[in-house]
């Protein structure tokens, strides 16, 4: 590298000799050097800018040529495949436990046109417009005569419409098969089934994919060709489901409630025989998800699975069952029930004063908060939490529905102070769904085996781990039976079916999470029948019910959820094949004929 000295000494020395200031010469030198640098840089940059310009020219040219090539080729029109038949019926049906159809497919047709094949475009357009009044005739004529090669006309047409189009007789009008999902029972079991929608759409087929409920959970199973269209058999019983929904709807109107949910479960296997949530919707025309307002008030919301509510006094039986199982109390142990009970800053009071003390059985029968809280204090936080967890009340249910895994019960996450022990003992300060409650009751009354809820029909009953002993389970059953016979749930006493159960009335929490409404409640009845050997567990929950037949409005579960549950049991027990135990009407009621 040849260095150019910044101070060509000769000139500077000459200037000095003349007595001039050398700084001016130095500035001039720097300026010249700078100019030279700039010129070199410009010369180099000129070449590189030229390269850039060439690059852009090529890029634009390539895009232009490619556009030209595309414009010159014919559009890839959807050609008639040899046979469209093999894509039909590739989503399996869904049936109830008796093989009754819950969801199936219907072959409909889509309509499209290839204007170049058409003989009389204008006439066909006019004929089409008369078959489909929503089509615009002039628009069709423009589309058919504009030199286009392919025009979509209708996504889905009925067989009658197809025949009418067929009768036009124009070879340019073509049909593509479109399979659609059909729910023949309408809104029945809508929340369980969920719904389906078109996925990717082509000319000759459209994918049908599940969007909610079991349709979504079992989407792959339903679409898997390896199953050869074998139907998915649910545990639901269509007749029971229909009865439950009918009674629940009437009960909801009678009790002026804004929503309701019901679950009927096989107490041994955990199979859900009926599951209803009101208000409901028609899965054939599933509404769009709500964008405003409270999602839990939307018809799409499945209250039985997704609705996490404080379930109130129905929890008391868990506390008592645990205390019995641990041997802390017997049914006859006397419990101090002086109300109100003070604990630190908190006061716990009963609905009305039940006197100084009650037996454990009567704590359940009369539903004493104070008594339950005292029993819970004997148990303590650790054991209470562990027991609730074993009953499945602290984790999402394992039911095979798309919505279930996200439904986390609410409970004190970090610590579990004594005040929580007391409130949780009677079902406040923790929330779970009606389905959780049904599974937990089934576990308590079926002899003490853990029940996992399922929506699928099981051939072989599964027996879970033991949660409480056989004896405790028997005591729990008799306590629940006594509650119905002489306690808070007397309206549930359906003759012959020996119903047992427990009520629960919980104030609704305010929207902002601080405190509770004074006049809005969620009432729940959790029961089983027949109580000597329970076959089914039932949970009925009403949202904001008011019973107004009396002199003042009544909101407790005993007056709202219980009569609805009783009517449901009256209707479904015969369908389920539960035999009523008819009391013999005296010795002379029947005369046996014997020869």
């Amino acid at each position, binding site marked *: 590298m040849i260095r150019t000295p910044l101070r060509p000494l000769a000139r500077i020395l000459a200037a000095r000799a003349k007595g001039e200031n050398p700084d001016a010469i130095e500035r001039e030198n720097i300026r010249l*050097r700078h100019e030279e640098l700039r010129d070199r840089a410009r010369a*180099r940059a*000129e070449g590189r800018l*030229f390269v850039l*310009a060439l690059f852009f020219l090529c890029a634009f040219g390539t895009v232009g040529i490619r556009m*030209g090539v595309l*414009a010159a080729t014919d559009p890839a029109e959807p050609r008639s495949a040899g046979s469209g038949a093999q894509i039909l019926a590739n989503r399996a049906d869904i049936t109830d436990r008796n093989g009754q159809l819950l969801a199936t497919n219907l072959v409909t047709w889509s309509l499209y046109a290839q204007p170049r094949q058409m003989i009389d475009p204008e006439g066909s357009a006019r004929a089409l417009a008369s078959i489909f009044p929503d089509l615009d005739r002039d628009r069709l004529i423009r589309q058919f005569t504009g030199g*286009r090669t392919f025009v979509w006309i209708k996504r889905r047409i009925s067989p009658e419409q197809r025949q009418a189009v067929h009768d036009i007789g124009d070879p340019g009008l073509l049909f593509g098969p479109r399979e659609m999902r059909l729910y023949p029972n309408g809104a029945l079991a809508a929340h369980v089934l969920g719904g389906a929608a078109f996925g990717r759409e082509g000319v000759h087929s459209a994918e049908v994919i599940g969007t909610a409920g079991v349709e979504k959970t079992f989407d792959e199973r339903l679409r898997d060709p390896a199953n050869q269209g074998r139907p998915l058999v649910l545990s639901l019983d269509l007749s029971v489901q229909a009865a439950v929904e009918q009674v629940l709807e009437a009960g909801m109107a009678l009790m002026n409630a804004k929503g309701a949910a019901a679950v009927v479960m096989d107490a041994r296997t955990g199979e859900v025989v009926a599951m209803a949530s009101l208000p409901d919707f028609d899965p054939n025309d599933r509404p769009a998800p709500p964008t405003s307002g409270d999602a839990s008030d939307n018809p799409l919301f499945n209250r039985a699975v997704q609705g996490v509510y404080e379930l109130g006094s129905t929890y008391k039986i868990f506390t008592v069952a645990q205390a019995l199982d641990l041997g802390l109390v017997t049914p006859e142990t006397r419990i101090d029930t002086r109300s109100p009970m003070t604990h630190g800053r908190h006061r716990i009071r009963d609905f009305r004063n039940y006197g100084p003390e009650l037996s454990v059985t009567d704590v359940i029968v009369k539903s004493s908060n104070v008594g339950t809280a005292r029993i819970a204090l004997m148990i303590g936080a650790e054991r209470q939490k562990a027991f609730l967890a074993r009953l499945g009340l602290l984790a999402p249910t394992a039911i095979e529905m798309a919505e279930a895994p996200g439904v986390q019960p609410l409970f004190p996450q970090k610590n579990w102070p004594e005040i929580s022990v007391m409130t949780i003992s009677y079902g406040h300060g923790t929330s779970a769904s009606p389905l959780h409650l049904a599974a937990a009751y089934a576990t308590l009354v079926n002899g003490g085996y853990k029940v996992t809820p399922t929506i699928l029909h099981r051939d072989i009953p599964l027996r879970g781990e033991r949660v409480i002993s056989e004896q405790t389970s028997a005591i729990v059953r008799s306590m629940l039976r006594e509650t119905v016979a002489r306690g808070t749930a007397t309206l549930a006493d359906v003759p012959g079916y020996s119903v047992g159960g427990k009520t629960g009335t919980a104030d609704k929490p305010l929207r902002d999470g601080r405190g509770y409404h004074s006049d809005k409640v969620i009432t729940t009845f959790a029961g089983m029948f027949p109580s000597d050997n329970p076959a089914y567990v039932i949970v009925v929950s009403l949202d904001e019910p008011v019973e107004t037949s009396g002199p003042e409005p009544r909101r407790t579960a005993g007056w709202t959820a219980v009569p609805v549950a009783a009517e449901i049991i009256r209707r479904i027990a015969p369908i389920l094949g539960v035999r009523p135990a008819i009391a013999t009407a005296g010795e002379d009621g029947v005369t046996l004929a014997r020869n």
Partner: protein
Amino acid sequence: MTEMVHGGVRVLGGDPVIPRWWRTIDRWTMTAVFALFGVGLLLALAASVPLAERNGLASFYYVERQLAFGGAALAVMVLTSMLSPDVVRRLAVLAFAAVFVSLVLLPFLGTDFGKGATRWYSFGFASVQPSEFLKPAFVVLCAWLMAAAQEINGPPGRLFSFVVAVIVAGLLAIQPDFGQAALILFAWGVMYFVAGAPMLLLIGLGGAAAGVGALAYGASEHFARRIDGFLAPEVDPRTQLGFATNAIQEGGFFGVGVGEGQVKWSLPDAHTDFIIAVAAEEYGLVLVLFIIGLFATVVLRSLARLMRERDPFIRLAGTGLVCVFGVQAVINMGVAVRLLPAKGMTLPFVSYGGSSLIAGGILVGMLLAFTRTRPQGRIADVFGRGRGR
């Protein structure tokens, strides 16, 4: 004596502002930009109607917005182009600081409009995407730093600008907005190239990129499948690309006719990323070639003018701006004709979008300010060549 010449009497500078602007501005480029905006408005009349109907608005709601924003953008462009390069530089560096801060705050204050990427500030009546405004400011800042590095005893400006580029690209990548991040790095690369990147380094980088690409193709199945899908001759007719290809083919040379296009009803991004498909379907190859011609005019004329420019800052800034502008157009149209893998990029001035229009106006305004004819001291060149040492 010297005092009398320097700074004595204040002489009013030659001719007035507007005539000088008109004389020195690149009128071809400016005309091309106006034409692009006109084409954009014409296409918006077709392409944005389905969107307006989907959103339950008046049919021409988006056209009116495009007109309002476009008018503002063109005004900004003309005003910016009247500034002197020094003023542009100062304003742009200040603007870069402001935009950079807003970009940093984006994860905390921005909205994602439910699209999964936090790129916007929402002001109710309109939303602003800071990364659009970042591009011109970033280019000018980097040009300034790189030009400073070319001075005698200048700072290591290239290193500084590289650090800035990496930070900005990183911020964009976490949004995530890989398209804009790549654009920022591309702009830096082009400026570095023009500022005199060593040839050896360029060859090395090119080789490394090819090597990494081949390695990724061999090692990563996902990457390989994407490239294979892109190279495959058959396109699935049910994808966005399929619809776009079909629209271009339907359009042919002269289009299916005004308002007859179908693709705008089936493509969700017909008014932004696939506007060229709408143009091709309704007006045919003729309009597409016209649009390409307009973009080529802007890019090639600006580059030609920058070749004569002696001031390194102006040359670099102008190059960066014009390359950002041109590459956006190439990528947008390249995706529609399947020359490039799918990547969301708007077509400057043609696609709908408030932020992108205004930012485009600023960008082209700066470009026009930089490409104005100014004395390049050619006489001095001639005389300087023969000077003694």
